[in-house]
């Protein structure tokens, strides 16, 4: 049973560029959340998708957007990258019927230079 998978594992971008990160949820999970984890900090909620719609959004700039596809996979897009966007981006999935706890992937390490 595959867990949450994310791609790519590492990414280096230049300030001002745009980036797309991808996530496949754990089998049987229908809800996908994205978190940003700065070095030495806890994960910070970005947004959550369910039934292909953004259901909840954290205190995050509009440069961050996402999408959920019919197969429950998801993308996170960040426009106009800033140096401060360098972080580990974590995707988490859950099943609304079986429990709310997010199950995390291993993340995408984004470095903005």
């Amino acid at each position, binding site marked *: 049973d595959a867990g949450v998978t994310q791609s790519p594992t590492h990414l280096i971008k230049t300030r001002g560029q745009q980036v797309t990160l991808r996530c496949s949820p754990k089998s049987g999970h229908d809800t996908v959340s994205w978190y940003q984890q700065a070095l030495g900090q*806890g994960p910070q909620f970005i947004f*959550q998708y369910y039934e292909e719609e953004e259901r*909840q959004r954290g205190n995050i700039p509009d440069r961050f957007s996402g999408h959920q596809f019919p197969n429950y996979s998801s993308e996170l897009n960040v426009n106009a990258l800033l140096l401060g966007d360098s972080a580990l981006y*974590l995707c*988490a999935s859950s099943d609304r019927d079986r429990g*709310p*706890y997010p199950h995390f*992937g291993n993340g995408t390490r984004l470095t903005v230079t």
Partner: protein
Amino acid sequence: QQQVKQSPQSLIVQKGGIPIINCAYENTAFDYFPWYQQFPGKGPALLIAIRPDVSEKKEGRFTISFNKSAKQFSLHIMDSQPGDSATYFCAARATGNQFYFGTGTSLTVIP
């Protein structure tokens, strides 16, 4: 503003010791309280969780103690092992299924 305050930032114990990590919150609407364990290069993994209608929960060597009136909860690791060396995060869920995480505790268990 940190919604969930976690302490200590780091902790070093001898093998067999009982490290205790504490978290405090203010939002009385929080309704789920999980703990996560994270190893370097990996995502956080769900360790144990509790609801506010229960004061204690044990799973193997891990125990959560929950004090609803004080708005505090803690993780105890019994008979700690070097393999428990990791970063631990407490979290709490607000309405709308958004989880707030603490800042983490780096635990080192010395053989």
